[in-house]
């Protein structure tokens, strides 16, 4: 009897964990789940927060580099306002973390998109790290419960899937198809058969990569001097947004120096601030916007004319002269009276 109760409890505990209404769901949505070799496809990393309000996350995606090759990462139109660690590839993993002040509470919130090329036939997957952190906007950084929906992909030989190649790539927007759930499913890593050399050209990229002819949004460059950054040297901070392909990189130019790659915060080379500072935000499509600040003239040796001080000084001198005149007049008057009396 006790065994039965324990068994029932376990069964229902598992059932109810899956039925957790408050858990966020993080999932991957692909433009296509059945791919041909050399086909370029886009994968969106999305979140449904249910009723939670998520303001920070730290996660990674892993993929099998025998089957897939990462082409590009798009950060445009993301729910993330500030990247703590912008999505970057290390080996066969993409690491990323970021914050959204005030939090995000909604469905199909895109964190970023990645463009992959299918390399070899077989079945493979892109998986979200189960140790990811999704933190609630509660002031205590409470970890939210979340469910993961990984992405299972089937790659077929180009010749075997010619009909599929001719079909337009569907689901170009961010509408969430029911994600392909590979939870607890063993990935069948079939030995890939190489039929043809991998073609890295991204001829069909346009199908999955929205056209971006718009410059990044206007942004502010701020100059700061804080002991906690760059040993108290003058630095600049900046953060631009691009709603299409996303910001790819920044460049900074000081005076007549050439533009060079930079990240915020950036410690200035010329600490006297006499050079104009330009910051260029470049999106993934190559569109850019330049914002400028300075130069700031800080020259302590240069005399500073303060007209208020001059006027007050002159008034004081006039006042002293009037007093002196009055004193001398009175003294002369007394002297004259004395002489008259004599």
């Amino acid at each position, binding site marked *: 009897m006790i065994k039965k109760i324990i068994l029932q409890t376990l069964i229902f505990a598992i059932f109810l964990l899956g039925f957790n209404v408050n858990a966020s769901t993080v999932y991957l949505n692909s433009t296509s789940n059945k791919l041909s070799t050399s086909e370029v496809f886009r994968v969106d990393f999305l979140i449904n927060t249910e009723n939670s309000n998520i303001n*920070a996350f*730290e996660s990674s995606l892993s993929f099998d580099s025998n089957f897939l090759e990462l082409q590009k990462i798009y950060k445009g*139109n993301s729910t993330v306002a500030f990247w703590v660690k912008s999505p970057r590839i290390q080996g066969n993993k993409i690491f990323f973390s970021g914050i*959204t002040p*005030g939090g995000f509470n909604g469905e199909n919130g895109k964190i970023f998109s990645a463009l992959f090329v299918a390399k070899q036939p077989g079945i493979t997957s892109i998986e979200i790290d189960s140790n990811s*952190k999704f933190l609630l906007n*509660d002031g205590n950084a409470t970890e939210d419960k979340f469910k993961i929906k990984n992405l299972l992909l089937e790659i077929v030989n180009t010749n075997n899937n010619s009909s599929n190649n001719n079909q337009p790539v569907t689901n170009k927007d961010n509408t969430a198809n029911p994600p392909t759930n590979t939870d607890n499913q063993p990935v069948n890593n079939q030995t890939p058969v190489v039929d043809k050399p991998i073609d890295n050209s991204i001829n069909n990229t346009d199908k999955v990569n929205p056209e971006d002819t718009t410059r990044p949004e206007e942004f502010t460059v701020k100059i700061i001097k804080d002991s906690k950054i760059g040993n108290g040297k003058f630095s600049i901070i900046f953060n631009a947004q691009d*709603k299409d392909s996303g910001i790819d990189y920044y460049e900074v130019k000081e005076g007549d120096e050439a533009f060079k790659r930079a990240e*915020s915060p950036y410690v200035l080379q010329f600490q006297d601030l006499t050079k104009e500072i330009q910051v260029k935000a470049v999106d993934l499509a190559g569109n850019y916007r330049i914002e400028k600040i300075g130069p700031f003239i800080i020259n302590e040796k240069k005399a500073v004319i303060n007209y208020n001080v001059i006027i007050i000084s002159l008034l004081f001198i006039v006042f002293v002269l009037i007093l002196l005149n009055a004193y001398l007049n009175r003294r002369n008057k007394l002297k004259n009276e004395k002489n008259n009396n004599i």
Partner: protein
Amino acid sequence: MVNKKFFNFFTTSLIIFIISLFFNKQTFAANPQFSLKIIYVPQCMDGRDNDGDGLIDYPADPDCTSPTDDNEGPHSKVNLASSVIFIQGRTIPNAKIKILKDGKILIYAKSDDNGNFSQSIYGFYHGDYSFSVTSETKNKTTTNLVNFNVSLNPGSYISVTDVYVSPTISSSVNEVKKGENINIDGYGLSESDVQIFLQNKKDNTEKILNTIKTNKQGYYIYQFDTKDLLEGNYVLYSKNLLSDTIVGSSKNIDINILISNDKIKNSENYNNYKVKCDLNGDGNVDLIDFSILLFHWLASDYKEGDFNNDGIIDIKDFSIMAYNWTGD
């Protein structure tokens, strides 16, 4: 026999289900809440000349195929008109209101004597935007951010109404001996009810200390006697009610209750209006503070930025900063 088995089965599952819901409720009990309504008005019934041809809406503008058509211009052309977002809500009377876009200050506004505010913002084209609204009182305390995400198409008009900004809260001390009083005050909606909550960090339980009425200026004050509390760490926060509905939750403030022979360490330097996570001391939590914290990523020797005192600057500290964000 079958019925008995089914009964056991059903009872067990029901108990587990109730326990599961209970734990979920505990996790999310302190989340800030807000109420908002997004009305999307198609271009052909928004009362505006979106395409600049002098004709407004369906059926006056022949480009409109129906009142629900979202393109007032010629359908063969891409619509590149600027979008408009209209935000309307209620907050603390005569408060300075900051409207943020993607975490950066976009525009300032001011609430009237009753706390009402509205603002139209132009100049957006397309994309998903995160807007936030926060209020600042006379004593520089700020409310939680109220966030809403909108997806804008070119030339669209989006109305966001019933944005209720959360109340503020501050306390006279952050550490007291058991039995001493704590003065709690703050601002909320004018002449509304504010519930003050106390959460025990140890067991995550919480209770309502009192429900207070704010005055015309939205001010409330409450003196809290700690004689019935056990030693330990607590969190205080308040919720604003409007017609018995919770419309906003304040930020949290930490309170430490000591036993009588403990020495109070830091209350002498306690500033009840100090902005948490303001690393450069300029009164704001913004990109500068974010940059400073980022500079110390994974550092173990930067106590000012270790907001959760776990010995390392990591994503949890950034989460606490995002919660306390004020913009510049």
